[in-house]
């Protein structure tokens, strides 16, 4: 059974008289305990999609289902408990005027779970689970480093015992050495609790480390979804190919990346046909006229790509 299913989600914002299409017709599902890595350039709509899942952004078109049910009042209430979020910037994610114990217990307070003493006890448990000393509880966010704050943010997200955490680039603002610590923490928490992650990132190395499946977004469209091993071994969409080639690797001779030239087109004015055709090395006449559908790659049913010439 799927935990979260997104059906043809579209998010559009009016900008003056024009419309900005942040997310267009995205369908994606997440199973319990699964990590889906959501990758793409800046402005590809990853965070907007994450906000839709977290309930911060109402989709303009399409709908989300949670545990198979449409998002009515009762399901939304359940989702408030079961879906939590961790943000990129650990310095803006914690209220500077709240002690850590109150920050961690906040989701419980909002949902009126347990007594005051229960919540304090839960905060004390969580603070140790994320690897912080117990005396952190009475301190304020400014006394902690970026990595420690991200641990506090994770503890807050864990407080109501969620099934899914939307992690919106949780490592991007951290030092590399701290990144691996947080990554390992997230992984061990997942193993211990059967958590699912929607892991938004532009760092493919990190995604390769954590994700079960990878979804690639380009200009608000889902261009490829595949299990991690497949996508890294044999990307199907030319954009994914280009993204993987752009990853610098130690020991590999630098060669000129094929494919990615120029900038992503404006989401205010997306190109007709395949949105990637303006930068695609494989572009043909059909790409400019007809939008490709997300279909399985030849011989690999688990791997889908939206391309007329997928490999």
């Amino acid at each position, binding site marked *: 059974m799927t935990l979260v299913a997104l059906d043809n989600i579209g998010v559009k914002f009016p900008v003056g008289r024009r419309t900005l299409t942040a997310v267009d017709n995205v369908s994606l599902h997440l199973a319990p305990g699964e990590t889906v890595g959501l990758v793409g350039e800046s402005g590809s709509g990853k965070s907007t999609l994450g906000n839709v899942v*977290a*309930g*911060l952004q109402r989709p303009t078109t399409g709908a989300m289902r949670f545990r198979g049910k449409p998002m009515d009042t009762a399901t939304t*209430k359940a989702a*408030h*408990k079961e*879906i*939590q*979020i961790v*943000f990129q*910037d650990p310095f*803006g*994610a*914690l*209220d*500077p*005027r*709240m*002690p850590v114990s109150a*920050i961690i217990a*906040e*989701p419980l307070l*909002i*949902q009126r779970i347990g007594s005051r003493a229960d919540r304090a006890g839960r905060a004390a448990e969580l603070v140790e689970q994320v690897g912080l000393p117990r005396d952190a509880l009475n301190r*304020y966010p*400014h006394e902690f480093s970026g990595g420690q704050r991200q641990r506090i*943010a994770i503890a*807050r*997200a864990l407080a*109501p015992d969620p099934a899914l955490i*939307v992690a919106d680039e949780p490592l991007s603002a951290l030092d590399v050495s701290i990144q691996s610590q947080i990554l390992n923490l997230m992984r061990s928490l997942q193993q211990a609790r059967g958590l699912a992650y929607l892991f938004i990132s532009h760092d493919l190395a990190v995604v390769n480390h954590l994700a079960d499946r990878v979804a690639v977004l380009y200009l608000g469209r889902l261009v490829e979804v595949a299990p991690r091993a497949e996508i890294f071994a044999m990307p199907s969409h030319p954009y994914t190919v280009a993204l993987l080639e752009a990853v610098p690797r130690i020991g590999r001779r630098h060669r000129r990346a094929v494919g990615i030239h120029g900038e992503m087109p404006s989401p205010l004015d997306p190109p007709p046909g395949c949105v990637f055709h303006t930068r695609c090395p494989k572009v043909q006449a059909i790409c400019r006229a007809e939008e490709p559908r997300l279909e399985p790659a030849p011989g690999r049913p688990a791997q889908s790509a939206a391309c007329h010439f997928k490999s």
Partner: protein
Amino acid sequence: MGSLFILLLLLLFVAAATPVAHWLGVDPYETDLLSQYAPPSPEHPLGTDDAGRDELVRLMLGGQISLLVGVLSTLVGTVIGLTIGVVSGYFGKRLDAVLMRFTDGMIALPLLPLLIVLGALDLTKLGFSAQFAHSGAAGFWRVVVIVALVDWTGIARLTRAATLALRERDYVRAARVSGGRAGYIMTAHILPNVATPLIVAVTLTVGRVILFESVLSFLGFGIVAPTPSWGNMLNNAQELVTTAPALAIYPGLLIFVTVIAVNFLGDGLQHAFDPRSER
């Protein structure tokens, strides 16, 4: 802490009015034209004013009125401004537009005609008893209400601006993901975080209001003679400044000390509320 001490001294000073009057055996309202502008003496420690009344006791009595007007008007104005500002900034869109245009309208209103109209309102027509309408208490509450009604705009704008920035903070969004509603977010996150800029604005308002009361008194709508307030004593002394400069200096000095002390208190409060400041 020094400011708190000074404010306590001021409170003690104004609270001592009745006992001191009794002890000195003077009536602060009784005019004695034979002893105008008397120099300090054991009977009148600070001398007498232009009507021969004891200056010290009148300063003490006037302080009661001035401090009360300052604190009450600021409090009422802050509640109005804070509510409008937070609601406007948090909900945004059309409500924000309506509330902010209303605020701009208040700022744009010509103050003097407005004050004259508000000051001239016949309270008996508003349903108050004639006895209350002509008592000194009515004049006092009239000032408090008038000042509060015109002096909330700055606080509303400041609060709105701070709220606009705060509502998009990640901790606010995280609270929303957990199901936090507008009421919870406003009280738990927005209010504590607007406190810092707000305290400064509020303490500045207290000082301004004490002076504003004197303007009202001068126009005849505020605290009117014979009831003293620092504001009307200062105004009254203006025309006598060559004959009796001390009469202007005493209330002026007290207003000055009060404003400074309140500002320092605000500074201290700000530090006390901010977990980041060293203690």
